């Protein structure tokens, strides 16, 4: 079995593009993990944002100052957002409240939070009615997050389906047909055919990853995984042809 695997890998020695893509794919897959973790963290913060704004609106409506209300919320708010708010407000004793808001927005690394903080800052500067603004913002961002979550839920399965079928299912299926009807051990000369089709599967796989990433609104993050999937697709086809056809 081990010799068979070694033999299979040995046959890829002549395919420079596949080897380069394989190495590049493994390296870039490591680069693909941080954006995924960052996105998970950011979405968790953004999903908690409306409840924070709503609570702040209630507290301000009850007569508390925004700084006091934020302090109170930082103690009760669960998750990363509460933790960051608590940290920032504790660190802000030596600076101004505006600086604390800016630091908090920067720490979250979320454009939603940054926008909200800028608006709160402006509203404080202009002495605007905070309760109404916070309540409106809570509703706005709740609706926005609902839409983003809906898109994620409904399109994730479809995106995975495209990638699995195009990058794995299709090369294996064609390799099965080719290996079965024109086995190399019976003298069929299909080297150039295999090169053409392996390149096609690589390109098709790249398109599938791109489409799937764009459907979910994270095309740039998907690019990290592209070389790996392209190499997998090409390798699967060439490997399956050799395994079936000999």
């Amino acid at each position, binding site marked *: 079995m081990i010799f068979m695997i070694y033999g299979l890998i040995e046959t890829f020695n002549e395919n420079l593009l596949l080897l380069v893509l394989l190495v590049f794919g493994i390296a870039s897959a490591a680069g693909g993990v941080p954006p995924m973790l960052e996105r998970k963290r950011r979405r968790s913060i953004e999903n908690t944002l409306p409840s924070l704004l709503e609570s702040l609106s209630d507290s301000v409506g009850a007569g508390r100052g925004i700084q006091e209300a934020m302090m109170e919320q930082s103690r009760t708010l669960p998750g990363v957002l509460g933790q960051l708010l608590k940290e920032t407000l504790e660190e802000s004793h030596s600076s101004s409240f505006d600086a604390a808001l800016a630091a908090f927005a920067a720490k979250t690394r979320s454009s939603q939070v940054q926008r909200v903080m*800028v608006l709160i800052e402006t509203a404080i500067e202009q002495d605007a009615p905070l309760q109404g603004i916070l309540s409106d913002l809570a509703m706005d961002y709740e609706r926005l997050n609902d839409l983003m979550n809906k898109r994620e839920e409904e399109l994730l399965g479809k995106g995975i389906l495209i990638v699995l079928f195009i990058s794995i299912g299709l090369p294996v299926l064609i390799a099965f047909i080719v290996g079965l009807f024109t086995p190399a051990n019976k003298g069929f000369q299909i080297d150039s055919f295999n090169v053409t089709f392996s390149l096609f599967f690589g390109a098709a796989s790249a398109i599938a990853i791109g489409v799937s990433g764009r459907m979910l609104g994270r095309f740039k993050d998907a690019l990290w995984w592209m070389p790996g999937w392209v190499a997998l697709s090409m390798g699967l086809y060439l490997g399956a042809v050799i395994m079936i056809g000999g």
Partner: protein
Amino acid sequence: MRKLDEQREVLYVIRTLDVLMSSGVGLEAAIHTIGSGGYGIISEDFSGIMTRLQKGSSRGLGSELKSMMNKAGSEGYRRLLNTMYTNVTQNTDIIETIRKQGARMENERSESVTKYIEELGSVPETLLSIGMIGPIILAIAGLIPQLMSGEMGAFMKLPPTATINIVVNVGLALTLFGMFMIGLKAHTKDPGL
């Protein structure tokens, strides 16, 4: 690309204008605040307006807003600029109008996301149909010279192998192009969340 950026930012700009102007900030100061950054392409546009106004190289805020309306790619942004232009020329109640616009735009955004999800529902099936049927047929076509060689070749006269290879290669390229065009729908119809 510009249209997509505008669609993504315009609702945030409307909300900011609402907060700023409800707090008593004037339209020009609000444009200056948004132009200072944070709202993508709209910030760039507003920053350009302010720069030209400060340099004195424009015919006033009204004409700047009007020329920006021609540049706008999305309907929502054009409507917002039109509201601002009307406020400058006719002193209308801009706060009330942009609030209504914001509510309307939010409904439109919800509808467009639902529509986007529905439209993309058929993408996997179409992509898989073209992406799988094409290569299967072309693989068999490409293998015909091998399969029909020797005694089998006497039953049927085949075109030269080079011709078959060209047909297969062109077919594969067309399949990729078809897949790309179907996938492009995911980009062009993006509601810009």
